[in-house]
């Protein structure tokens, strides 16, 4: 298993460099640059800026510098937010996105698993229909609708919860976490239900029952492990995206997370910041996928490395 992990990690590095290179190329293709704005700059000032940021050097020098920076894990200075390093920006924004994402995932897991298992064990009952209907609603209601609706009810009608903004670990988090987790909650509930249903009909469960095990231990010790597999494979990318920032929710609730920076970095053509965030997100996706594969080994006895 160690060999498996090491092998996967070795592949990660070139993958990240490829992603970063593609991104760099795309930024170059996009017209305009970080210093263009409504008011045109005199050519001499533009020249001063290009000189200051090394933009007049040949492309391979700039590309090489970017690659070296990425390899060192130091993405340099932001172009838009003068005098701020990309690493410092990521370092400030990450806890916000991570807190939000982690709480949302936790909530999604607890609610999703519970309702999924309940629905599977009482298939075709009212409870099953009710929870699956709610899940369907959760999947079809986009977060840019759900968020404002929650704000409208809880913040603007009843004035119970603040409508937006970051305030550390506080009640400000309730609405964004709810909004963010709804979709994942619904997915996890449906995945758990279908996974469990499949497993409950399989031979080894019949065997377990035939052995005379109680229904409870059949469910928890045997069925759940198999039934969770789809949830586990779904969790990798889901966690990666949740923890590295969720653009829409961060924007609706004005949270200073990575998602907010990502959008603005692109609009501002802030190359080092874009590269930094892209590298960071791709590493997160790759690492979480690796974790999922490792987790498989524990959940599914058939998986060997």
């Amino acid at each position: 298993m160690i060999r498996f992990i090491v092998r996967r990690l070795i592949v990660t590095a070139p993958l990240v460099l490829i992603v970063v290179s593609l991104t760099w190329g795309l930024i170059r293709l996009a017209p305009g640059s970080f210093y263009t704005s409504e008011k045109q700059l005199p050519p001499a000032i533009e020249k001063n800026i290009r000189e200051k940021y090394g933009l007049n050097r040949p492309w391979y020098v700039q590309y090489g510098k970017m690659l070296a920076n990425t390899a060192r894990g130091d993405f340099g200075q932001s172009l838009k937010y003068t005098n701020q390093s990309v690493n410092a920006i990521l370092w400030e924004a990450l806890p916000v996105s991570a807190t939000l994402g982690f709480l949302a995932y936790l909530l999604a897991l607890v609610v999703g698993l519970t309702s999924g298992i309940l629905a599977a064990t009482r298939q075709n009952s009212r409870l099953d229909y009710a929870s699956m209907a709610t899940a369907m609603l959760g999947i079809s209601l986009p977060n840019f609708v759900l968020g404002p609706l929650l704000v409208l009810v809880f913040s603007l009608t009843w004035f119970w919860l603040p409508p937006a903004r970051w305030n550390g670990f506080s009640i400000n988090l309730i609405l964004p976490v709810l909004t963010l987790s709804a979709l994942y909650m619904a997915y996890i509930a449906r995945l758990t239900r279908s996974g469990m249903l499949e497993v409950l009909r399989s031979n080894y469960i019949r065997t377990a029952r035939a052995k005379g095990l109680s229904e409870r231990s059949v469910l928890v010790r045997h069925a759940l492990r198999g039934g969770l597999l789809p949830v586990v494979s779904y969790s990798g990318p889901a966690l990666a995206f949740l923890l590295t920032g969720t653009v829409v929710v961060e924007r609706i609730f004005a949270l200073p997370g990575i998602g907010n920076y990502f959008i603005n970095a692109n609009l501002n053509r802030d190359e080092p910041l874009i590269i930094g965030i892209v590298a960071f997100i791709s590493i997160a996706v790759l690492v979480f996928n690796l974790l999922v594969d490792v987790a498989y080994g524990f959940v599914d006895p058939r998986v060997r490395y």
Partner: protein
Amino acid sequence: MNPMNPVNPVNLMNRLLQVRSRLDVVLVSLLALTAAACTTTASDGMYFGKTDPPKGQILRYVSGAEAESLDPQVSTGQPEARIYMAIFDGLTEIDPKTAQPIPGLAERWEHNSDNTEFTFHLRDARWSNGDPITAEDFVYSFRRGLTPELAARSAYMAYDILNAQAFNEGSVFAQDPATKEFVADPENPKLRLVLPGDPQERASAVQSRNLTALVRGKVFVGPRAEDIGVDAVDAHTLRLRMSRSVPFVPGLMTHQFFRPVPRKAIEQWGVHWTRPEHIVTSGAFMLKTWRPYDRLVVVRSPSYWDAANVHLDEITFIPLEDQTTIMNLYKAGEIDGFLNHTVPAAWIDYIRPLKDYMDAPELANEYYQINITQPPMNDVRVRKAFNMAVDKVALSHFRRVTKPLTSFVPEGIFPEYPRPAGDPFDIARARALLAEAGYRNSRDEYDPSKFPIRDVELIYNTTDNNRQVAEFVQAQWKQNLGLTVPIKNVEWKTFLDKRAKLDYKGFARSGWVGDYMDPFTFLNIFSTPKGDNGTGWWDKKYVDILTEANRQPDPEKRFAIMARAEKMLLDAQPVLPLMSNATNWMKKPYVKGMYPNPETLHAWKYVYIEHDPALWDRDVPIMTSR
């Protein structure tokens, strides 16, 4: 239900049919729901949402996009300017009501007869670390801002200061090696001859301007910082020498580029001098915390020269751009005020009657610029026809927060300026002009099918507002001229690129926010063929009239001459004026001393929280109507 609430079911249906984007529909339905919920809110219907003032003298203000930097010479935008109004004072400051220049660090100033030399007398003021603010600080700051290595984007704001442009652009003077005399500019003998710093460019400039004889045997030397026309006469007297007549210097000095920066802190900390632990400021407030994308907190500065008259203890600037989020925070009473252009169009009818809505004319216009270098738009008759075929009154009625504009300088900002009238809405005349330009049938009547519509399009940068205006104008042209001009949205930076390179056919959306309180800030756009002009139209006569105006010491006469230049611009019609904007923002009634001025820049030291509801603002008058 609120009696003033205009959302009834029929109205709502109509509006739902009008707005097409999904988000707008969501907004409108939310608004309806919100309005329905109004019976349970704390507000008594005069104001939007909660009106409980915060405890003590603390203001929470949404200042727009995240600040790029807190270095006034490096950043360029309004979001930063709003913060600088608290922490960095200028020679002159902005009047909270009219936005006209008032004394700041300079307690008074005078100028010579042709507006080329200004003397500012500084008051006794101190930096936040206790050091005195002297004329030397300004000299240092202006020179620093113009250093090519700093690459300040606003450096062009100072180009009218003697030799400032040459210094910033890295140009050279021609000097006689023996006498050390500089060669004068043959076109303007009062100034030194300025040539490009690059030897190749210089050689071709010398040749094309026939200067070979003039510069023979001369050496080329770059300007030194000391050559820039800013001098400290003594510790409290600052003198500015300009390269041409610039009557609006006092207004210009309110711009962030001219606010002094602390030399000691910059030399000690380098680029990190703006961090809260290092920064030294000169304003009524000083920086306490700065958490990007979250908040920037300033607190009262004890060393400020006018500290006794500062009311607020603390201001929290909140960087936010999402309009709906800002409105939500405002309604829930989490913020006390926010930046301009923020009330979404779909909300205006509901918000406008409320007493905390700040509506006043703004130092900004909106127009379409026309690429006059390509047919059919190279014909002034065609340009005039397209202009006359747009009903601007109807457009403003549709937009709700604008006034129709037929001239170029916005309406309602400069009461003394005799704005010339542009061409009125006149369909018959428009069609006649097009017929005259050759688009006619055998009976000499206007024939739309003869018009090369494929060579015309209208591009705009992607926003809902721009799309609505473009669709409106498109419909007008279709209805009035029988021409369907294709409209195309373009991503912001791509759009800027296209517009600057004249890489568009026909029309491109444009708007201008004035840099200082003078009509010149609008008319100056067309003094160079390059830069913000973007139309291909340039006329030396136009520039001469503007120069003549600025040499005129009498303000009234100066405005009259300037209006002649604007008339000339309107006659040539490289632009299609659309509307003057309104400020369109809100503040809670308990926030006093804050007014809808044309620049939406607030002198924070006059602002305070009024805890007695009897003294709250019920109706803020429109500031510029006299």
